[in-house]
């Protein structure tokens, strides 16, 4: 139908009157009509039987409710559109509720009362209240809403202007509607999708309410008995006949595979098909769709396929029934023989690898199956994961030659959303929840990013299913999906909203400095990166941050990574540390990306298990160029493919690479009295020109931070931090230790080594403080609640020096830039 001719609702038109009558009749009144007719007719007949002629009146009058019932059920409810006038295009349930001269606000109110409008309210958050707040009360502006509605109707190729169309029209008639949509996390395109979704569900309901023609009572009488198959298989066709089969959705990739199945089994070649595709692409759903097509009498199919039954063989049941050696082969031969003799069976081996390899719950039946597949007379469908298919074909190349391979590609984004929109209806019934569209969108986005063991649409569906447990008052929202992924994978995907989270982010520098000294620039860049990530303003297609920390040993490079893991990611165990000095050969690349089943310590395996973490690539300058080249994609796109070609996301990790390269040069610059900020660029150029790093590698990092060596005053702070950790350990025994300032100064003098940074400090404290405390505690001179004071003399005695000689030295003046 074309565009409407006018933009005014004709309140007095025949259609409008019918629509109003339909609205008045709905509910109890409509339901009571057939009963009224029956009661009237029965009473009338009763009176006639008793010889009272007035009974004719009752019988005659019973015709009126009967007519009204038929009129309501078959006409008023649907009220089909007729001409191109606006009144004839508006859906009956909306038209019947509209006042004489409706304003946009009146339309909004009506939209909230009809099912299609309520659909938009529940699924998208376009509630009646929101629509009312966006709609004008001036009836003169209604024409703009009608025009918008008609444009949407034409764009979506619909027959009617439904409540869903009007909800979107009201939104789009609002001047600043994009901002409103942003608040409820949807965009313009989603609104059109919502209208089509509502239409799609109506079509689906209509499809399933029609009686199915599936062959009738004598369909299988000419075919054989199948007692064994019934015992060890699952009759998909029967499930479909009963209406309990899997709900299949017509998506392009599936339709193509079903067509190929029909073509292969309808032709005279080998009667087998191997459905090959990654787990989650919908291989089982394709088998159900194929079985449903064979059962549909209205489908155009070769006679040799019509009403054939698809049986799913249950590997576990077969193995359980024939535990002895050789028994299973005999049983499978009998089952397949029965299927062959019955002449109307298509056997399906779902997860067919279970029949071709030895293992728990699987058994190698290649010797039995291959001759049958080779002969090609028994119809068999095998479904298998691509990788498993390759493994099996490597062991048994003959098998590949006898199979007709049909590849099943993962669904596209649009297809996946369509599948989710239809499948969630079943989930809603099973889980007693209602899914919002925002949840579908989020499930796709997060599924793509975090679920690696399945392909689309399976991965998004899995996430959507698990989100049901996090519903809010029975409504599965975007937040439910985020919570599901946060709880199952232990990552943070939502924007920081709790006060505690925000406080932590705003005071990140302070929190980090509670456990490390200075290096303010480094602390600041990583804190900024985290704030960007949790405020939702970062590039989501990269890691949270990628940093290269350069500097001599013992200056806090690793300590900062640990502090970050502890403060933000929730514990030091949140650090994935790879020592790249163990990856010095080209072939070490394979160790980096090894499958988790074989090597749980590989980089990809660890990140797959714990994506929300600090990835610390230590001593990066020692890695082989091939290893660095592998890491380029990780730094650039936040993706690394493991050896099974699965994408492993680093997009929720902070990647920190550390290097000691040029440490001597940094010391030289500092000793010459230069500030880090002044020599940083020149220093990086030197690293490139001396071939220690390639420019394209360094360019991949968000920030390159040069750490400078500690000064003596900073070492005093380091000493304080170490002493604090000693006190933490002693707290269990209710004892504390205190070091006099002069003693502390002496400790710093002993622990200061420009080449080793703060590293010797810990050893010095251990030797001078921890040993002294231990001796005092063992001698019994310390009681619970006591504070042990370490004096300068005690420290001097430990190091065999004269007290007062060294401790009195003035601390080294800190270099500029501190």
């Amino acid at each position, binding site marked *: 139908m074309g565009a409407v001719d006018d933009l005014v609702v004709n309140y007095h038109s*025949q259609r409008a*009157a*019918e629509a109003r*009558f339909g609205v008045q009749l709905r509910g109890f009144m409509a339901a009571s009509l057939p009963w009224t007719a029956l009661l009237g007719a029965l009473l*009338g007949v009763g009176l*006639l*039987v*008793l*010889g*009272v*002629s*007035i*009974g*004719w*009146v*009752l*019988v*005659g*009058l*019973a*015709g*009126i409710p*009967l*007519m*009204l019932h*038929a*009129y309501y059920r*078959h*006409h008023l409810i649907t009220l089909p559109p007729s001409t191109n006038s606006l009144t004839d295009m508006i859906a009956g349930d909306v038209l019947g509720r509209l006042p004489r001269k409706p304003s946009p606000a009146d339309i909004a109110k009506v939209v909230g009362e009809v099912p299609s409008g309520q659909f938009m309210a529940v699924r998208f958050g376009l509630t009646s209240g929101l629509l009312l707040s966006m709609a004008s009360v001036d009836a003169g502006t209604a024409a703009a809403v009608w025009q918008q509605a008609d444009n949407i109707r034409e764009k979506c190729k619909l027959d009617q202007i439904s409540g869903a169309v009007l909800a979107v029209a009201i939104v789009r008639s609002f001047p600043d509607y994009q901002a409103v949509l942003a608040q409820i996390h949807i965009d313009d395109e989603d609104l059109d999708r919502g209208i089509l979704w509502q239409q799609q569900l109506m079509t689906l309901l209509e499809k399933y309410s029609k*009686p199915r*023609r*599936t*062959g*009738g*009572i*004598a*369909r*299988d*009488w*000419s*075919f*054989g*008995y199948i007692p064994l198959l019934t015992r060890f298989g699952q009759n998909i066709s029967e499930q479909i006949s009963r209406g309990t089969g899997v709900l299949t959705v017509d998506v392009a990739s599936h339709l193509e595979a079903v067509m190929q199945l029909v073509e292969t089994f309808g032709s005279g070649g080998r009667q087998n098909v191997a459905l090959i595709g990654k787990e989650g692409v919908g291989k089982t759903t394709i088998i159900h769709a194929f079985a449903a097509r064979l059962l549909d*009498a209205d489908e155009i199919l070769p006679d040799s396929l019509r009403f054939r039954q698809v049986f799913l063989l249950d590997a576990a049941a077969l193995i359980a029934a024939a535990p002895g050696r050789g028994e299973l082969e005999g049983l499978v031969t009998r089952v397949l023989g029965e299927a062959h*003799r*019955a*002449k109307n069976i298509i056997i399906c081996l779902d997860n067919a690898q279970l029949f071709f390899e030895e293992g728990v719950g699987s058994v190698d039946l290649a010797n039995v199956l291959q001759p049958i597949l080779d002969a090609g007379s028994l119809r068999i469908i095998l479904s298998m994961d691509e990788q498993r298919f390759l493994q099996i074909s490597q062991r048994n190349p003959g098998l590949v030659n006898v199979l007709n391979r049909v590849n099943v590609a993962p669904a596209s984004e649009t297809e996946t959303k369509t599948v989710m929109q239809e499948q969630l209806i079943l989930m809603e019934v099973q889980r007693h929840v209602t899914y919002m569209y925002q949840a579908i969108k989020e499930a796709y986005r997060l599924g793509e990013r975090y679920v690696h063991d399945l392909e689309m649409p399976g991965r998004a569906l899995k996430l959507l299913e698990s989100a049901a447990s996090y519903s809010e008052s029975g409504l599965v929202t975007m937040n439910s999906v985020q919570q599901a992924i946060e709880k199952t994978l232990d990552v943070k995907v939502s924007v920081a909203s709790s006060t505690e989270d925000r406080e932590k982010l705003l005071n990140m520098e302070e929190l980090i400095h509670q456990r490390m000294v200075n290096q303010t620039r480094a602390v600041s860049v990583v804190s900024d990166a985290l704030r960007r990530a949790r405020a939702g303003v970062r590039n989501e297609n990269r890691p949270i941050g990628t940093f290269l920390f350069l500097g001599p040993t013992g200056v806090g490079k690793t300590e900062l990574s640990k502090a970050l893991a502890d403060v933000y990611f929730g514990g030091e165990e949140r650090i994935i540390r790879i020592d790249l000095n163990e990856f010095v050969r080209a072939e070490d690349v394979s160790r980096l990306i090894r499958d988790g089943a074989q090597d749980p310590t590989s980089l990809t395996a660890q990140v797959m298990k714990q994506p929300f973490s600090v990835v610390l690539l230590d001593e990066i300058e020692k890695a082989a160029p091939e290893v660095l080249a592998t890491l380029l994609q990780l730094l650039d796109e936040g993706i690394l493919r493991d050896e099974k070609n699965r994408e492993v996301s680093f997009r929720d990790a902070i990647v920190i690479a550390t290097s000691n390269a040029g440490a001597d040069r940094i010391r030289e610059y500092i000793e010459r009295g230069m500030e880090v900020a002044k020599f940083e660029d020149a220093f990086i150029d030197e690293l490139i020109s001396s071939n220690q790093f390639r420019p394209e590698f360094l360019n991949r990092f968000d920030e390159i931070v040069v750490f400078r060596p500690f000064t003596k005053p900073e070492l005093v702070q380091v000493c304080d931090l170490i002493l604090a950790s000693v006190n933490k350990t002693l707290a269990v025994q209710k004892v504390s230790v205190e070091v006099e300032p002069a003693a502390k100064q002496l400790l710093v003098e002993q622990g200061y080594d420009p080449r080793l940074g703060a590293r010797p400090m810990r050893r010095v404290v251990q030797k001078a403080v921890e040993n002294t405390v231990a001796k005092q505690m063992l001698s019994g001179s310390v009681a619970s609640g006591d504070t042990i004071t370490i004096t300068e003399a005690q420290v001097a005695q430990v190091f065999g020096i004269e007290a007062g000689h060294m401790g009195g030295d003035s601390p080294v003046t800190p270099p500029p830039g501190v």
Partner: protein
Amino acid sequence: MFIVGLLSWWYGAGWARQARAVRDRLAGLYDYFSIDLLLKTLFSPFRQISAGSVRGSIDVQVRAWLDQLISRVIGMIVRSIVMVIGCVTLFFAAIVGIVSLCVWPLVPLTPVLGIVFALSGWVPWTI
């Protein structure tokens, strides 16, 4: 206007819809009894008992042939019975459908007819 709408639907789209409903009901019944399939497979073995070629001695082959013959006879009897039941059911369903289509245009007249019959004082039966 409402009455006009109701009557124009009743004698137009409503009647056509009723005709389609009768047709669909008959098609459903036809599909359920699958009479064409029963006819096509009238002499096929019933549920494939002893179907297929049998190898062995003459004795075995004769027994298999006899088994098949019995299976075919049973099949023919069962199919014939179902066909008869199906045809009768379809016939009655068609009659009911045709009657409903004939009565359909008279339904709006029933109140008037009822009053006329009541005034005439005629009753079809009395006890």
